[in-house]
């Protein structure tokens, strides 16, 4: 920053001519090369801090144990090894991966369906206690997720579905923030369109399914992404829903790898490989739907 000071000092107008000079400056103000270099420099340093860990992860996944510990900074596996991949295949990793895929699919599909239906009901249908339901929704959203771990376990246990597939996905099938987002969106669609559909003889469900839902595509994509990301990365819920290794999802199973799940010692190439494999689906979805992720971040904001 100190480099920029002399530059601005020379362009600063003398006091008496300030007004005319300053407005001229306002029109013609340019970013100085020094400033550009500084900004780019800062950017590159941050980019390295942000990207390097992922590169290390990628490279270490193909190293041998000794190489990983001996040369943690080197970016070339020496020798190149797929031992981590082989070892991981012998564990229950493939099973966990499959569980994650199944759970994520079910959760995402049902959240899109239920959140949009509930959102539409709250936005448009007039029924007794609608405001009360909406208030309850807001209240639920304000309770931190971590506080709900034990309560959720109690209900799962009470219903007798502990250690079963339904325990993994049923509690995640609706989410208050999703309902909220959809409600907000539906309220912005002009009611006249639905009135037109009604005059043409469509019932409430028909109106919702064939007229309103297709218009809600952007919101639906946002919900889909939030649900995918939320359920694929969820850890807490899967910890309390099961203690059966066959029902572990990726997050739960892989988290167990660090605490002695692999036997002797911490074998970094394997954990890096496991992390890498569970990151690939997220990365693909992220790259394809980047635009919507950006919005999702702001929408998710109020969820806290």
């Amino acid at each position, binding site marked *: 920053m100190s480099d920029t000071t002399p530059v601005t000092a020379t362009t600063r107008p003398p006091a008496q001519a300030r007004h005319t000079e300053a*407005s001229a400056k306002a029109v013609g103000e340019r970013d100085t090369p020094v400033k550009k270099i500084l900004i780019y420099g800062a950017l590159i340093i941050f980019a390295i801090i942000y990207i390097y860990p992922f590169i290390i992860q990628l490279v270490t996944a193909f190293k041998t144990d000794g190489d990983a510990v001996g040369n943690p900074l080197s970016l070339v596996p020496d020798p190149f090894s797929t031992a981590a991949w082989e070892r991981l295949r012998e564990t229950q990793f493939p099973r966990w991966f499959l569980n994650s895929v199944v759970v994520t699919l079910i959760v995402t599909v049902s959240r899109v369906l239920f959140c949009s239906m509930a959102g539409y009901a709250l936005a448009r249908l007039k029924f007794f206690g609608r405001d009360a339901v909406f208030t309850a929704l807001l209240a639920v959203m304000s309770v931190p997720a971590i506080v*709900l771990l034990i309560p959720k376990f109690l*209900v799962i246990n009470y219903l007798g579905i502990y250690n079963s597939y339904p325990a993994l996905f049923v509690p995640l099938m*609706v989410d208050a923030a999703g309902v909220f987002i959809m409600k907000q969106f539906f309220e912005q669609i002009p009611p006249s369109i639905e009135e037109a559909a009604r005059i043409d003889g469509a019932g409430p469900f028909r109106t919702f399914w064939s007229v309103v839902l297709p218009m809600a595509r*952007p919101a639906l994509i946002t919900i889909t992404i939030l649900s995918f990301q939320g359920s*694929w990365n969820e850890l807490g819920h899967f910890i309390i829903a099961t203690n059966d290794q066959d029902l572990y999802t990726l997050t739960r199973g892989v*988290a167990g790898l660090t605490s002695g799940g692999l036997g002797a010692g911490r074998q970094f190439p394997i954990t890096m490989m496991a992390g890498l494999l569970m990151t690939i689906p997220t990365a693909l979805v992220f790259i394809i739907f980047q635009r919507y992720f950006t*919005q999702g971040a702001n929408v998710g904001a109020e969820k806290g």
Partner: protein
Amino acid sequence: MIVILGLFLVGPIVMALWVSVSDWTGRGSPFSGNVDFVGLKHYRDMLATEGLARQDFMISLRNTFYYVLGVVPVQTVLALLLAVIVNQKFLKGRTFFRTAFYFPSVVSSVAISLVFLFLFTGTGAVNRFLGLLGISGPNWFADARGVLHLIGDGIGLWNMGSPPAFLTDTRVMNLSLWEWFSGPSVAMSAIMLQVVWTTAGTFMLMFLAALQDLPAEVDEAAMVDGANKWQRFMNVTIPHLRPTILLVITLGIIGTWQVFDQVYVMTSGAPAKTTLTPAYLSYSTAFNQLNFPRGAAMAFLLFLLIFALTQLQRWLLRDKDEVARRRAERQQRRQRRQGRTTTTAGEAAIARTTVEEAQS
């Protein structure tokens, strides 16, 4: 769906409230006849009764207090810095940088934790890099020494081997003052670095959205009045970002007090309980020691704490002109929105209204 929402969100809270005042042992139904009401015993154990339960709870509160104190300001400033840099108009490859900074936020915390475990091992990448600079790094995740203790030792304020007696002899809530003023342990600091690194990207996006809303005319007007860049940033940009800053800090406090995943994956509260957090302690009390009532009681105390803190922070940072100003702004936006016909207007509006809703 209302049924599922109620079943899994409202019902559980009522059940947990009951469990937290009962002596249920995890066997059978918590509503069966042989489960008794014990009143506020579990809450007393953690707050009033001298004992291990209170000691552990206090340790976890201390750890998380320093954790929040470190993470929230740093991630807010870093996010703002990243947003301002990425928002520069001359910048090429802006999308690339934005993506790079945001990407860690969408990756599973488990995967990130595994990477950081590797980076921060004793002979890991971070210590190798510090070695290149001539610094010998600590054995991060095995180091229970408090950072404030280390700093005090470093500047000659005290000797860590024999801390001052008036600090070690005064005990408040089961911990000596010396233990209270330890600061985060080195292990906790590594987790803090990781969390800042991960979440700054999300908050950067919020700041970016707000920066792009800044009307260019206002900035130009300030320029015409002769304000330099720094003055314009402090007196135009920052006030404009005020609601966003408030939101980021609030979300930061709510999020950081809940820290759980990283502790679960990386340390389980070790070394010497210095990474124990209320969320993790509540989980391990319930599921490892099968003391569900105490675990549930702890969860409620954590909830009350988060709730109280966010209210307090809102009250401290309240702005009296804010309410009137925001109302006017919202009206203005509504008029602007009606003028737009493109489909993207709807998309942008969702993001905006929800953020707005959160602020009001």
